[in-house]
């Protein structure tokens, strides 16, 4: 259950950034999570409440932008959508590819007041 570590990491970033801005309250936190980031969204959901309790994010709204994973085939250079890490190129069936999107795990923005 590494999602708890992740959630605590999110709280720490929000706390630091909010203080830096001189504001006191986080109204909204926006996250960007790639489909290959290694985070299970329902697990994050499960630990969220416990992780944010008594913190700056306790009453904040949370928005998650999921980023669809994409690879580029190293044989035929086709960019393609990855549903699984082990998906090969749909045209030439090669498994030689670079993952170009989908491993993001970021705090995108905070709305503070």
């Amino acid at each position, binding site marked *: *259950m*590494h999602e*708890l*570590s*992740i959630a*605590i*990491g*999110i*709280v*720490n*970033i929000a*706390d*630091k*950034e909010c203080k830096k*801005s001189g*504001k*006191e*309250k986080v*109204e909204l936190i926006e*996250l960007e999570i790639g489909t*290959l980031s*290694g985070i299970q969204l329902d697990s994050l959901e499960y630990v969220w409440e*416990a*992780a944010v*309790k*008594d*913190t*700056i994010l*306790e009453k904040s709204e949370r928005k998650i932008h999921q980023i669809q994973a994409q690879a580029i085939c190293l044989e035929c250079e086709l960019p393609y959508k990855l549903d*699984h*890490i*082990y998906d*090969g190129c749909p045209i030439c069936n090669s*498994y*030689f590819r670079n993952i170009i999107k989908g491993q993001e*795990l*970021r*705090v*995108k*923005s*905070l*709305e*503070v*007041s």
Partner: protein
Amino acid sequence: MCGTCGCGSGDGSITIAKPKQEIKQYSHDHEHHHGEHHHHHKTVIDIEKDILQQNNVEAARNRGYFEAKNIFAINLVSSPGSGKTSILERTLKDLKEDLDFYVIEGDQQTFNDANRIDALDIPVVQINTGKGCHLESNMIYDAVKQLQPKDNSILMIENVGNLVCPSMFDLGEKKRVVILSITEGEDKPIKYPDMFLSSDICIINKIDLLPHLNFDIEKLKEYALRVNHHLEFFEVSATTGQGMENWYSWLKTQMAEAELNNS
């Protein structure tokens, strides 16, 4: 105990210690915020910050230290029972005259693994993560301070037996080695792809059992390469020693290359 998430409570707390050493409690970094807030104008701040940034920064600090001292750090990951500790023990026994080893053991509970390493007269620190399912860079930082590894040595970090969570946490290692035993099923790499994607080396253990099992090693490799075409394989048996020579010569080559780069 942290009243917020229960972390650091009772037997869930983290300890880092050498065998037979007094145990120091370890508290983790967890910021809390209390009190009333006043309403002001809303502002949107663009942050674009990696959530794992803190771990990554601490991993970079470890990596810098290892590079400066020419310490070759290896992060050993696998599911429980694949033979991480047995491979480690055999490697240490066979190579301790040729190379300087240091070991960090990660488990939720017990000093059992550290005691096995300690019995070989290899300096070792045990990290008990309590309820934690993986090692993080700050634990390695503290463990390394206790270990005081010499220059030009090998640091073996045995992660918590778990094929999921440790994949996301860089510890500052030079190479990540995933161990899989042939009693586990050929499709593990595609069932738990994150770990295979983030590893450099795949050791296939327990090959002495091959005659008794219906296991297709080529199929396993094919699956693993679908996930990560950079993976290098070693087929070994920590029990009989079969195939261990290839793994040893890889280790020696890595050390020789590192010394060459640093000279």
